[in-house]
């Protein structure tokens, strides 16, 4: 039979047992819907997590430290060498900036100091924020706003710190606080010491104050706890922080080791790559330059593995409903054979080949699969939206930011449709071959 006649007859047969076939198709649709909803949640969560993580700067940032740095928690084995380790100075910073796929290189400025607010002292860690961190996503839901200029005398408070300062944190925005810090002032070389070689300059530490305007309150510091001396609770623009010349943790050590204090030396530099995929190569080139490099790339790899397994499990659970729907198709078609036994006999007597009968049942199964697939994708999409919507209503009540929980990409739609049709055809395999093998003499005798 020609395809058009075959489809014609198949559709006619499907219409004849409308209710039963509609219910079977609905079964397929529910199966596909559960699969699509499950996978869309999986994909959505993965996108959400990887977006958040890439925004956090954890996976595209490399922390560069001098070889002798011991701030990474454990002392690193010092190379037995007479030449001193390469300092992380301005020259090194330019060199790092020139590496391929680097967006920016910025120093880590953090210092522990005292803040006066309403004439009460509070101790905290202050960190300088690079301009680019505005786009990290960590400031998306902040109260107030980001720094008005890269070197403004403004401060963003971490929420816990804001709660320390006031019982009503929101009221802090617009108020002033005083940052008290120790400024490092280089001593003139003549007054440095009396050894006479003039090489070891020292510095004096002078207390200073800076008035800062509170312009925002944020939940967490971006890239908190990574490469720093602890969570900073007061954030100021990086440029502002560097003009302060506040004494840093490394300074004393540098003095003891005899570095030239007049020369700006960074304790560490953060190198941001264009995307996490460049991190591995960049890390290698940075190590070649003679520095230590550290990134969380391995953590991101295991995260991807986690989501692959997660998606697989969701897919398996989603497929269970489709497996049940498959049994529905088998059942419907086997019932149809019993009902249409005589019709099959007539078709064969009129000259239908076994393959004609087989194809007829196959097309019927396929049509139920396609229709079920289309409705299922639509239901699944709606289900995902509904879960997303419900979650966001809940998040809103908890005063949290809305998220896009489910995501139905094109590949999922196409995959679901193909899957529905293939599964339906597999389900049609047995009934179709049974119908084709029906003995026409028996079928015509059957009353």
């Amino acid at each position: 039979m020609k395809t058009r006649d075959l489809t014609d007859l198949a559709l006619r047969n499907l219409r004849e047992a409308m209710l039963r076939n509609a219910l079977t198709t609905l079964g397929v649709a529910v199966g596909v819907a559960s699969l699509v909803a499950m996978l869309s949640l999986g994909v959505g969560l993965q996108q959400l997590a990887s977006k958040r993580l890439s925004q956090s700067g954890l996976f595209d940032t490399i922390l560069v430290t001098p070889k002798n740095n011991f701030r990474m928690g454990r002392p690193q084995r010092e190379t037995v060498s007479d030449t001193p380790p390469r300092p992380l100075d301005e020259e090194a910073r330019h060199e790092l900036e020139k590496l391929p796929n680097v967006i920016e290189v910025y120093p880590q400025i953090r210092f522990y100091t005292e803040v006066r607010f309403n004439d009460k002292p509070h101790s905290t860690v202050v960190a300088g924020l690079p301009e680019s961190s505005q786009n990290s996503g960590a400031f998306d839901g902040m109260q107030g706003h980001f720094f008005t200029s890269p070197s403004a005398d403004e401060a963003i408070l971490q929420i816990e710190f804001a709660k320390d300062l006031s019982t009503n944190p929101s009221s802090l925005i617009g108020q002033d606080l005083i940052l008290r810090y120790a400024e490092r002032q280089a001593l003139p070389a003549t007054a440095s010491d009396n050894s006479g070689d003039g090489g070891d300059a020292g510095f004096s530490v002078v207390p200073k104050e800076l008035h800062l305007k509170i312009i925002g309150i944020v939940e967490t510091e971006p890239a908190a706890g990574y490469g720093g001396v602890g969570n900073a609770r007061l954030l100021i623009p990086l440029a502002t922080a560097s003009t302060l010349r506040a004494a840093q943790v490394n300074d004393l050590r540098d003095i003891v080791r005899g570095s030239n204090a007049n020369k700006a030396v960074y304790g560490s530099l953060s190198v941001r790559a264009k995307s996490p995929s460049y991190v591995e190569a960049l890390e290698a080139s940075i190590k070649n330059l003679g520095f230590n490099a550290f990134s969380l790339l391995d953590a991101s790899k295991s995260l991807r593995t986690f989501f692959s397994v997660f998606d697989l499990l969701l897919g398996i659970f989603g497929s269970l409903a489709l497996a049940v729907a498959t049994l529905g198709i088998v059942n419907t078609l086997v019932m149809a054979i019993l009902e249409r036994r005589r019709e099959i006999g007539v078709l064969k007597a009129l000259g239908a080949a076994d393959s004609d009968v087989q194809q007829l049942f196959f097309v019927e199964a396929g049509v139920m699969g396609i229709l079920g697939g289309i409705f299922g994708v639509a239901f699944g999409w709606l289900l995902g939206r509904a879960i997303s919507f419900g979650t966001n209503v809940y998040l809103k009540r908890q005063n949290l930011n809305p998220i896009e929980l489910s995501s139905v990409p094109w590949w999922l739609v196409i995959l679901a449709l193909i899957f529905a049709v293939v599964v339906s055809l597999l389900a049609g395999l047995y009934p179709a071959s049974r119908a084709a093998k029906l003995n026409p003499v028996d079928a015509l005798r059957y009353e």
Partner: protein
Amino acid sequence: MPQTQPAVQLEHISRHYQMGETCVRAVDDVSLSVASGEYLALLGSSGSGKSTLLNLMAGLDLPTSGSILANGKNLAELSPLELARYRRDTIGMIFQSFNLLPRMTLEENIELPLRLAEVDRSERPSRVREALERVRLTHRVGHRPAELSGGEQQRVAIARALVNRPKILLADEPTGNLDSATGETILALLRELQNHLGMTIVMVTHERPLAERFADRLATMGDGKLLNLTPSTHGAVQ
């Protein structure tokens, strides 16, 4: 009317069924030659094997032994697909219970063999109309079988059997579900079609008087065997 080349030739045909322990000999060593253009009636009581013999000629069933020569081929040696093609292209069949598909209109029922034969869509309406004209039922094409009388349904079935222009028409008790007057008109119609189209007809019936009037030869079966083969009174007249 009988010509030299037989339309169907049965040689020592047997069809045995195994029913548990016992072997049922539905058709037992039958040899019979149906001439091209002949109208043969197969007579016998129920269970005599006449329907089985008809199914064997139709290629719906295969013999346990013996050979059936039709169209120059031995049906016993054909593949299922070749048998289906033989039924489609060479055979037209009508049944006691008409076997029209109830949810299709007359037109669609008659079109069915054309679909199976992959006849061009543009050609189909004229072929259906031609078949309907032959059975004089052109006015009710859009109706469904249940809206017709038994006689009309059988005429639709005949039109469906004719639409592919078969060489052989096989009829299994075509008057069995009809009153005697209607049965007679159906058999008269078959006779008329045979005269016009020159096809071979093999008809299973248990109504000897009707067979005597319309068929050329009568083959009587009993217990799976061919008991006798005689020209009909009508055939004798001719």
